[in-house]
């Protein structure tokens, strides 16, 4: 039977260190925010680990990750992050195989590119009108 645990990691001097293990996601995220708000660490991370004893492998998913620089934004993002899973999933096995997948949104980048191209075209059209007026 698969066993699910939640691991709280803290970042200090560039090193992530396992701080505590929880059997409740809510307890783990509450404690993570408390540690970040306490200001003793440079960052916090909560990993969900689903361990399958039959295959001796575990699926690890990072549920929450915040660095000290994000602190000001953290309060407004708390409710969002509590419902936002699978930022980064990896599989650990006894043979040490690792794989990773990352979800990302390309829509935002595409929109920015379209706006940039339109602005450049507008600048060229403006310049063309100025030149036509002069000559």
């Amino acid at each position, binding site marked *: 039977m698969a066993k699910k645990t939640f691991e709280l990691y803290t970042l200090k001097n560039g090193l992530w260190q396992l701080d*505590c293990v929880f059997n409740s996601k809510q307890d783990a995220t509450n*404690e993570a925010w408390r540690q970040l708000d306490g200001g003793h660490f440079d960052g916090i991370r909560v990993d969900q680990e689903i361990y399958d004893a039959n295959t001796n492998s575990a699926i690890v998913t990072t549920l929450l990750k915040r660095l000290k620089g994000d602190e000001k934004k953290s309060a407004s993002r708390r409710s969002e992050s509590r419902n936002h899973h699978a930022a980064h999933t990896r599989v650990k096995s006894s043979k040490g195989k690792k794989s990773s997948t990352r979800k990302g949104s390309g829509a935002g980048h595409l929109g920015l590119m379209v706006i940039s191209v339109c602005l450049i075209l507008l600048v060229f059209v403006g310049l063309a009108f100025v030149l036509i007026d002069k000559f």
Partner: protein
Amino acid sequence: MSDNSSGMERRMVVQKLDVWREARGDEGVMPMKTAIEQMFVEIAPLSFVLDVTDKNEEPTFASIGETVIELQETDLIGHPISAAKPDSLMGQIFETLSVVIDKKVPATVSGEFKQQSGQKHFYRCILMPLSAASEKIDIVMGAISFKTE
């Protein structure tokens, strides 16, 4: 004895976690002496101690507080952890014990259980690895807070 506030119930675990963090020092593990001085006297009735000195042997109960014995309805002192019935309090809280011993970090467990009388309890438990002198884990101290439905 029951605690009717889930906030208070959570606070006990968080308080002990903070004490453990502060006391672990450079060795990375809280010394037994500090734990006994700073925690054990205060939480004795709601605590238990597991002897995990021998890695090849199953952990055994070295001591159990009187309130925990009342909740468990059996005195398990001197017995291995497998002696606890699976649906009892002590039968539920050791899922993460191997992580506590191997990775030398505390673990918290929350859940519920029913006594033979049918009375239901919600509990939170913290398991803390402690060392006698070196980095080696010699005992695991547990502390429980609970409320009765």
